[in-house]
């Protein structure tokens, strides 16, 4: 007995999308798009504002003289940043050399060896390390590490070596957390297959797992590299700030980032322009590293 009493009135017409609703949903969507576009706007603004101030460094000083000049001496109108470029590369390379093995080893430990209890101590420790501000790392390097190295090496304790140690510690969290994620996304079946063939844990790690995760680990290292190149405060406090080619790893030197901080307070005219020019270089390098990582990820997916 089908009754219709009490049932809701069936609508006579299918409701069409009203213009008001359509407009409202479209407006909302575009508002959100605008917010997402702020990121793009930010990048463009940085290009414009830093670029406009810094571009004359390349035109007025001259690309050859600026990028490859060996003397940085603003007081005598010499703006060669090669010593600074060298400083950046030297500091970054040493930090990577020290930090990458430590970070990847920690990542492997977390991913393959640690019990859940141990993991719950070590991983948060790594994440906390990431949260320590660079000025405190620099402070630690300045008051704790420098005297030790000074005694040990007979010099002042400022120099590439000190920077390597501090910077290596700073990039460990970046590389370790991303490497751990890369290792953990390797399917378990691969591990089981290796163990089933009688491989030890270590053999499984270096023959099977590390190769399988190598793209993710490489991405992590690139991001660590970006961090090392762009790091300012911590390096500033331990590197000695002498814009010259250091004679050894215990001599003061300077990097692109530290030189900007040192000179900015009193730089005027062409000097200031040169500093902005250095900022352009740093910005372009960091964006290129991001592009490299994205490209690698896309290639990795297509495989």
């Amino acid at each position, binding site marked *: 007995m089908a009754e219709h009493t009490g049932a809701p009135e069936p609508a006579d017409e299918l409701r069409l999308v009203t213009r008001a609703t359509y407009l409202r949903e479209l407006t909302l969507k575009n508002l959100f798009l605008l917010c997402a576009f702020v*990121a793009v706007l930010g990048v463009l603004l940085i290009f414009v504002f830093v670029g406009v101030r810094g571009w004359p460094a390349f035109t007025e000083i001259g690309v050859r003289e600026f990028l490859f000049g060996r003397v940085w001496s603003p007081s005598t109108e010499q703006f060669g940043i090669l010593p600074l470029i060298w400083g950046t590369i030297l500091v970054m390379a040493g930090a990577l050399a020290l930090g990458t093995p430590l970070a990847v080893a920690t990542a492997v430990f977390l991913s393959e060896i*640690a019990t859940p209890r141990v993991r719950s101590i070590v991983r948060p420790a790594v994440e906390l390390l990431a949260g320590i501000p660079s000025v405190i790392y620099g402070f*630690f390097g300045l008051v704790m590490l420098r005297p030790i190295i000074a005694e040990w090496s007979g010099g002042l304790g400022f120099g590439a070596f000190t920077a390597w140690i501090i910077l290596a510690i700073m990039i460990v969290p970046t590389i370790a957390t991303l490497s751990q994620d890369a290792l953990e996304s390797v399917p378990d079946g691969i591990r089981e297959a290796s163990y089933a063939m009688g491989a030890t844990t270590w053999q499984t790690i270096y023959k099977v797992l590390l190769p399988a995760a190598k793209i993710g680990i490489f991405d992590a290292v690139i991001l660590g590299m970006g961090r090392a190149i*762009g790091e300012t405060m911590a390096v500033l406090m331990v590197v000695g700030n002498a814009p010259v080619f250091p004679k050894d790893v215990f001599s003061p030197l300077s990097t692109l980032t530290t030189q900007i901080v040192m000179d900015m307070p009193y730089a005027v005219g062409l000097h200031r322009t040169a500093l902005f020019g250095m900022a352009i270089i740093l910005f372009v390098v960091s964006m290129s590293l991001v592009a490299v990582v994205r490209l690698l990820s896309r290639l990795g997916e297509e495989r």
Partner: protein
Amino acid sequence: MDKRVANTIALAVLWVAAGITVFVLFAIIGYVFVNGIGVISPRFIFTWPHGVAAVGGIWPTIVSSVYVTTLAMLIVTPIAILAAVYLAEYAVQGRLVSTIRFAADSLASVPSIVMGLFGLALFVEAAGFGFSMLSAALALSFLMLPIVMRTTEEAIRAVPRFIRWGSYGLGATKWQTVSKIVLPAATPRIVTGIVLAAGRAVGETAVVIYTMGQAINLPRTPLDSGRPMTVHLYLLAMEGINLRAAYGTALLLMVMILFFNLGARWISRRYRKV
């Protein structure tokens, strides 16, 4: 070498590596704590530094740090959340989305000194805000934007599909579903992301030096300048004026950041169940 011996050595090395990492963390925290704890007192926290040697306290720097961080988070949070809503709910894979993501990644990797110079050029000089909380907060916002965008997007994606479908099935529009169901459900994770970003903002130095100046000041309006704890620590350390105060500042800064980090962790654990 026998494979078992190699295995044992390798595992030992890995344990040592992890141990070094944890040790370094405790070494740094411990060093700052041990040297700074003697300096902390109500007087240190609540009074002003005076004189060339900056003796006394660091109250204005504490206020400056909190002020600028709060302002930055207020500016960046709505934009980042709505941007994440777009990416998670409305966007279709394509050139536009790739561009946005590339831009966000780039912003995240900009060296802080470059961001500082950018802030100087745009907010301090071109926009005319001068050295101020506002200039610094705006520069910090650009730094924080990609971080909050990413954590918020992940939080939104973590809301299960069948909960959204329950809402759509009742005749809700996309925005009604997002605003009444998805965002509330994602709130704990979103908040965690914001707190973590705030922790990062508190620790920034290079960005704020060029946008806030270095003068010690108690900021009242956003156009006032000031000196945050990070810059104060940097100046004290580099100029070697007052190492005691430096340790105290470092410790307080450390405590503040640990508070943010552990707070974020606590929030995410408390709301994990949902």
